[in-house]
Every structure is written in structure tokens, then in C-alpha cells.
């Protein structure tokens, strides 16, 4: 029952009460009872007031109960943070309000659920994005090339360790700063700026650029890529600096090698040609001179052959083409074989050959022929550069602590000047004045180095006291 209906009924009741009171009064008057109209009026008024108060009281209590229940339920929801429905009994007006309230609560509950799901989704996405960003950064940081990323205002966004070291700045102090203040290499800054502002559509530029690093000029291949938004706007530049100093050096070495080889090959060839012409022109008058010429020509042809052989050997080892037959080899035995072969040569020059060969029990895994060749080259060299009456010592021993077998060849020869020492294993390098002492292809020691270090992962070293002698030593890991 609605409040309006109740009030309506109450007023009907009041009117009928008033009407009955009036009727009673009229009847009494007609019967002749003298009724005090004033008293009657007060009575009716009092009755009406009492009745109204009673009704109001009842109504108030009902409303209060319902509102209390609603607020209790709402409080309960607030506490539990769970939206539910408000349940109320009786009182129609309040029921209407609670229905509306329940609709509101339901839509709120749906909305909250949606927001929660959306929130979770966003959280997952942001975690994924964070991981992806970290991953992308890790990729950039792991690149050995220097990478510098700038935005469209030429401000630093990202740079890896290699870039920090190469361009000498700290990323943490430089983020969002203009590269003008970070990169001291003006030419590089100009390149980045040009790439960013260039109107041409070619997104990538590759430039060769030289940077001084610790006083040494290094050559870099700089790749500058303009990064654009899907709309075609320039959003920044990615600069990658790849060190090509080594490649350059190798290509220079190749050029030098070819020119050295052609020079070295041409020298004996020039002699042969010259002697042939002399013979043709009849310059050699007697048989003895002619025989001398033939001998020289044969010797030069031999030298040419040795040169080619050595060049092929070296390049075969260098390029890994040569087959290395690995087997247990005893350094002491190999050294002994070499000493036997060079003994006549040493006797002819009155050079004392001293052998200090350790126990042959410990072996290394190596190519027997190559190791023999390496020791032979070292001993031949020692004999070549040692004057008559000198001594050449060959020793082998095992360094148990470092687990290596060591072979040493030392002489009492001319020695090597300190400035020549770093180059002594270079191809065709001949120390100043050594050519006068002995003939050589300039490849013997280069071959030893290739055999020991490239083919066997060993170590070859030299110490020398100019004028007093040199010691060449190599070591190979021993067989366990």
C-alpha cells in the first residue's frame, strides 16, 4: 500500500469521523439535549489530532525501518567491496526507490567487472610491453657495434656500451640531451643531423669514418638509418658504427703480400733471365764461367721453387686447406731427427751443435712432418746467422705445471735488433743487414709461426740480444 493511499484512507477516516461527530451533535441537538457545541468541537479536534499523530508515528516507524535496512545493506556492500541487490519488504514507495537503486547497483557491478577485466588486460599488456622493451634494449646492448639512437630533435634516446666506450660518454648523464653536448666528434654529429634533415627518401646511408681511439686511428663503417613514423614523419636516427679497421688492415696486408710475392719471385727470375742473356750474347768466354752461370741459374731456379713451396705451405695453413695429421709426437725425437740432418751443415761452419733433449716419454698431439719442418727451420736459421766457431743449442723439456712441452733453439749469432723483433715473423720481413749474412726467402719464420700457432694452437716466442744471439721457443700442450 502506498503512502498516498494510506494518507487518503486516513483522511477518509478523519472526514467520516468528523461527519459522524457532526451527525451525533445534530442528533443530540434535535433530541433536545443541550450539548455544549464548543466542548464537542474540542473533543472532535482532539480525536483527529490523536488519530493523525498515531498514523504519522506508524508511518515514520515503517519508513525508518526500511531506510535502516537499506543503509545496513549498503554499508555491508561497502565493507565487503562487493555490490549486490538491496532487499526490502513492505512499503511500496521505498520498493520503487530500491528497485531503481538495484538497477543502478547492477549496472555499477557490471561496469566494475568490466573495468577490472580491462585493468587486468592492461596490466598484462604493459608487462609484456616492458619485457619487449627490455628485450629490444638487451639486443641493442649485446651488439658489439656501437649503436646510437637519437630523436627528431637530435637528442640521445639510447646508446649501448660499445657506443659509450667509443664516443666516450655516460648514457645515464646524457639521456635526452642534444648530441652536440655528448658526442665530441663533430663530423659524426653532422652526419646524424644531415641524415635526420635530409629530404631524400633513401632511408639508409653508409659512410666510412675514422675515429681516434686511445691515440690510434680506427676506421668505422657508419650506417645511418632515418626512422620514420607510419605517416612518413622523421622520428629519429639510428646510427651503427662497425669497426672495419681489421678488415682494412687485412686488405692492406693482402695488397702488400701480393706485391712482396711478386717482388720476391721476380728477383731470382731476373737473375736467371740476365744469365741466359749473357750466355746468348757469348759474354761467358770460357767453359768454367759458363758452368758457373749454369750453377747460378740452377740455384736461382731452386730458390724460386722453394719460395713457391713456402708460399703455398703458408697460405694452405692460413686458409685451413692443409690436412693436419694429428698423432702423438715426441718433441725430443723430432729435434733429434733435425739435428742429424743439419750436422754436416754445422760441421762445415765449425758450429757446435748442443742437444739438451728431455725425456721422450711425454708427447704432444701434432702433425709430425709440420713439427719437424718447424724445428728444422729454426735450427737452419740459427746456423745461418751464427758465425764460424759459434754454438747452436736445441733443448726440449716439459713444463708439468703449465702442462706444455717446450722446444728451444738458441744460438750465439748476430741477434735481432729490438726494432726488428716485432716483425721477425712477418712474411718477407728481413732484418736490416741480414740479407748480407745469409740468403733467405723471408718466409721461414712465417711458416714456423703458422705451423705452431695456426695449425697447432701453440705459442711461438723469441728473445734476442743484438750481437750476442737469439732464442726461439715454442710450446705445445702435452698429451695427458
Amino acid at each position, binding site marked *: 500500500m502506498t503512502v498516498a493511499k494510506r494518507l487518503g484512507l486516513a483522511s477518509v477516516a478523519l472526514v467520516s469521523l468528523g461527519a459522524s461527530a457532526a451527525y451525533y451533535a445534530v442528533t443530540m441537538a434535535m433530541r433536545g439535549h443541550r450539548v455544549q457545541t464548543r466542548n464537542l468541537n474540542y473533543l472532535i479536534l482532539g480525536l483527529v489530532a490523536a488519530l493523525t499523530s498515531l498514523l504519522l508515528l506508524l508511518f515514520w516507524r515503517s519508513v525508518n525501518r526500511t531506510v535502516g535496512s537499506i543503509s545496513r545493506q549498503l554499508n555491508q556492500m561497502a565493507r565487503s567491496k562487493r555490490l549486490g541487490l538491496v532487499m526490502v519488504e513492505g512499503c511500496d514507495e521505498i520498493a520503487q526507490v530500491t528497485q531503481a537503486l538495484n538497477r543502478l547497483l547492477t549496472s555499477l557491478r557490471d561496469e566494475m567487472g568490466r573495468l577490472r577485466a580491462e585493468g587486468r588486460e592492461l596490466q598484462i599488456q604493459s608487462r609484456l610491453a616492458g619485457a619487449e622493451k627490455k628485450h629490444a634494449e638487451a639486443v641493442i646492448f649485446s651488439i658489439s657495434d656501437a649503436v646510437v639512437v637519437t630523436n627528431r630533435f637530435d637528442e640521445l634516446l639510447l646508446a649501448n656500451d660499445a657506443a659509450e666506450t667509443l664516443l666516450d660518454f655516460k648514457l645515464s648523464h646524457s639521456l635526452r640531451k642534444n648530441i652536440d653536448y655528448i658526442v665530441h666528434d663533430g663530423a659524426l654529429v653532422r652526419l646524424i643531423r644531415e641524415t635526420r634533415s635530409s629530404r631524400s627518401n633513401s632511408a639508409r646511408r653508409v659512410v666510412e669514418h675514422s675515429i681516434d681511439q686511445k691515440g690510434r686511428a680506427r676506421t668505422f663503417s657508419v650506417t645511418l638509418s632515418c626512422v620514420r613514423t607510419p605517416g612518413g614523419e622523421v622520428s629519429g636516427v639510428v646510427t651503427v658504427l662497425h669497426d672495419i679497421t681489421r678488415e682494412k688492415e687485412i686488405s692492406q696486408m693482402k695488397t702488400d703480400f701480393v706485391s712482396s710475392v711478386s717482388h720476391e719471385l721476380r*728477383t731470382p727470375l731476373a737473375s736467371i733471365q740476365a744469365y741466359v*742473356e749473357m750466355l746468348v750474347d757469348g759474354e761467358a768466354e770460357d767453359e768454367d764461367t759458363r758452368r758457373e752461370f749454369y750453377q747460378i741459374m740452377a740455384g736461382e731456379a731452386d730458390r724460386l721453387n722453394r719460395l713457391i713451396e713456402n708460399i703455398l705451405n703458408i697460405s694452405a695453413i692460413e686458409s685451413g686447406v692443409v690436412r693436419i695429421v694429428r698423432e702423438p709426437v715426441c718433441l725430443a725425437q723430432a729435434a733429434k731427427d733435425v739435428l742429424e740432418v743439419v750436422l754436416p751443415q754445422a760441421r762445415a761452419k765449425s758450429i757446435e751443435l748442443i742437444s739438451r733433449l728431455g725425456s721422450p716419454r711425454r708427447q704432444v698431439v701434432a702433425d709430425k712432418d709440420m713439427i719437424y719442418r718447424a724445428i728444422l727451420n729454426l735450427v737452419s736459421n740459427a746456423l745461418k746467422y751464427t758465425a764460424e766457431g759459434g754454438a747452436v743449442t736445441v733443448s726440449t723439456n716439459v713444463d708439468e705445471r703449465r702442462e706444455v712441452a717446450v722446444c728451444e733453439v738458441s744460438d750465439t749469432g748476430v741477434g735481432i735488433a729490438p726494432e726488428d723483433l716485432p716483425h721477425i715473423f712477418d712474411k718477407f720481413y728481413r732484418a736490416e743487414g741480414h740479407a748480407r749474412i745469409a740468403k733467405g726467402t723471408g718466409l721461414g719464420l712465417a711458416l714456423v709461426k703458422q705451423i705452431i700457432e695456426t695449425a697447432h694452437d701453440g705459442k711461438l716466442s723469441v728473445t734476442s740480444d743484438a750481437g750476442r744471439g737469439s732464442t726461439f721457443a715454442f710450446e705445445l700442450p702435452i698429451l695427458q
Partner: protein
Amino acid sequence: MSKKVLVADDEAHILHVVSMKLANAGYEVITALDGEEAYELCLAESPDLVITDYQMPYLTGLELCKRLRRDKSTMQAPVLMLTARGFEIEQEEIIAAGVAATMTKPFSPREVLATVKRLLETDGKEATKRKAT
């Protein structure tokens, strides 16, 4: 009187061939195995012509030539330089050093002799010209 020629080369066989060719043609030949030795011999012997290799220990052919140009007793002697292909030298550098002629290895002893003759003749003509004026 036979002309005196100094031949300097660190390759003994080249030295041998060239000196023999010149000696057979009637020149007086002195030899040196490096640049330093060649320079000292030039000062001592004042040769009429110098044949030198470019690549030599201690003193390159170019340095030797420059030194010879500076010294009064050797400045007249023309220098014939033997070079090896693959080690090209700047032409200006050769002219600046005062080299009279260059020949590339491998070379023909015949051509060396012809060049020596030519250089000594023009040198002689110039000398007579100088005397005449």
C-alpha cells in the same frame, strides 16, 4: 782511359751479371752490396757513373743518389737506378733526387750496357760543351 762505373745491389747475382757485362765492354767496375758501402766507395773512387738498386739495406738507392748530388766530387756522375715492379716510386721523387735514368727489374744486361753508354756519351758531350763555353 776506361770509364769507372760503380754498381750497388744487395743481390749478389745481379751485381755479378751487371759488373761482368760492363767489364766485358771495357769499363772499370767497382761493386758494393749496400747503400752505405756504395756511398763510401763513391767518395773514395769518384766513379764516372753509378748503377744502384732502389731497395738496399742501410741506405736506399734514392738516399744514395741525394747524397751523391750534394757532394762536389760525385755530383757530376749520372745515376742509373734499377727498380723492381710492385714497388713503384713517385716519378717526381726520382727526378728530385737527380736520377738520370731508371730501369725496371727483370732487366736485360744488354739494355743496361746501352743505357750506360748513352749516359756517359751525353755526359761527355755536355762536359766538352761546358769546356767550350
